[in-house]
């Protein structure tokens, strides 16, 4: 496999005239043959993937299959060993390419809720009035206005995740990268935050790449789900989620079609989870 340079295209010139613009809208994220090797350990193996603009794209896969690694590559925090990706940016806009909601606690403990949520905007020197308006909006949407002056250690786990989400949304990126943002939460909080996330997302319908362990969550949130193989991570299957939007999470979960889809995905994922476990046991011996 040849190593190609990572290309980042500010792509519009390639778009043909208005007549058939809709048909050939460039994908928001185009991943081509990306692999990532740590030493001789293959974490991501030749992943090729197009994610459409405005798509809520989910990745499920067993632990250690390279999901975070792929996301970190797209976030520019890691270089692919081979392959390339491009993220389409709106021409002439100052919007950042991506913002990430990290797996685990990533709020700065030394900043208040407000300062944390405003971080991205401050770093790109947005006008103070704009920061005030946008951060105020997202803190309001996440129910954190009252806690604007609190420090992260004064918040519950669910509230901290809300701040992380507000921080990413407030930065107004082209694409959102979310790495298991709800995995550490209890079932009730998870449901609340999923609903909240969907509501916020409906405002602008940004392109989202969302990683999760939970098949339910993948079906609740996603337009399309990629099931990844156990290490090394490859694309195993793609599943389209047929449910319309806006979605009512509680209602959706009661539908038979929901249960069937979850079951179908579980069956496919199950093989990989078992394989991953076998690998771990082998390595243990």
């Amino acid at each position, binding site marked *: 496999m040849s190593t190609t340079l990572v290309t980042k295209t500010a792509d519009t010139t390639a778009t043909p005239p208005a007549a058939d613009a809709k048909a050939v809208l460039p994908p928001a994220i185009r991943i081509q043959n990306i692999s990532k090797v740590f030493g001789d350990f293959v974490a991501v193996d030749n992943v090729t993937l197009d994610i459409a603009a405005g798509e809520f794209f989910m990745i499920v896969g067993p632990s250690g299959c390279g999901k975070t690694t792929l996301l*970190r590559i797209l*976030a*520019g*925090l890691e270089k692919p060993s081979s392959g390339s990706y491009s993220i389409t940016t709106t021409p002439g806009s100052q919007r*950042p390419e*991506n*913002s*990430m909601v*990290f797996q*685990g*606690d*990533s709020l*700065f*403990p*030394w*900043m208040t809720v407000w300062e944390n949520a405003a*971080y*991205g905007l401050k*770093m*790109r020197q947005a006008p103070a009035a704009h920061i005030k308006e946008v951060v105020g909006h997202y803190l309001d949407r996440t129910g954190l206005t009252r806690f604007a002056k609190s*420090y*992260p*250690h004064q918040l519950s786990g669910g509230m901290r995740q809300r701040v992380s989400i507000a921080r990413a949304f407030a*930065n107004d990126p082209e694409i959102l990268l979310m790495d298991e943002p709800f995995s550490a939460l209890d079932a009730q909080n998870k449901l609340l935050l999923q609903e909240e996330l969907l509501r916020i997302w409906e405002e602008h319908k940004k392109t989202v790449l969302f990683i999760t362990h939970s098949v339910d969550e993948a079906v609740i949130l996603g337009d399309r789900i990629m099931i990844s193989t156990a290490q090394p991570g490859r694309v195993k299957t793609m599943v389209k989620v047929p449910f319309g939007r806006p979605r009512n999470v509680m209602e959706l979960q009661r539908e038979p079609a929901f249960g069937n889809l979850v079951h179908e995905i579980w069956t496919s994922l199950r093989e990989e989870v078992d394989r991953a476990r076998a690998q771990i046991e082998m390595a243990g011996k």
Partner: protein
Amino acid sequence: MSEIAATQPQTKRWTMSEAARDRLINFVSPIALLLLWEVLARVHLIDTRFFPAPSSILQTLVAMLETGELQRHTLTSMRRLAIGMVVGGVPALVIGVTMGLNSVLRAAVDPLISATYPIPKSSILPLALLVFGLGESSKIFMVAIGVFYPIAMNAMTGVREINKIYLDVGHNFKASRWNVFRTIALPGAMPMIMTGVKLGVGMGLVLIAISEMVGAKSGLGYLVWNAWETFSVDQMYVGLFVIALIGFVLTLILNEIEKFVVPWKR
């Protein structure tokens, strides 16, 4: 049930909170010690040539305050301490944090710091006198050296111990180098830096006292040394007492500063 309810108010009256009890002990114990000392001195159970009674030390202190001599020495020492702390502390902060962030600089500077750190700072005094002469600069240099090491080393360690995820967040949100320094490295290392500042101030106080004993005509160190040469033991104790008091007050001030610059620590 009713029994417990009845006894509770009574027990409450006789116990006090642990914090209050500790504070009381903190306050009572030095006073008790001073009283014991006074009594032993008055009945000549201890040699008052070496251990004059606290009351006579107090008299000397008042006398020295009246002549203004004590204020003069104290202010001189404090000024040297303050200037030395800035001269040593600010570069230590910048170098330490930058070393924490930049592995190249760390590789270059760390061996120098590690190799010179074990040298007792007081043993550099002759060299400082040689280079800077008997004037102010040699004293300021000594304080600066004492302050530099703990702050630089703690700042470096503090930055290196910052969870990597925060640097990833900074990177993801496109923080410039300066902003990584200002919004992540510095505040993230601040708890360790404050510990370094406290250690440094303690070291600076030791070193200012020592360097004023050699080749100085003013300052609390000079006061103590001069008292030895003239055998004015009372004055010596006054000097020691003021040095201890400065250390105590500085600790209080630094604790307040810490609460202010690290408000996010539980």
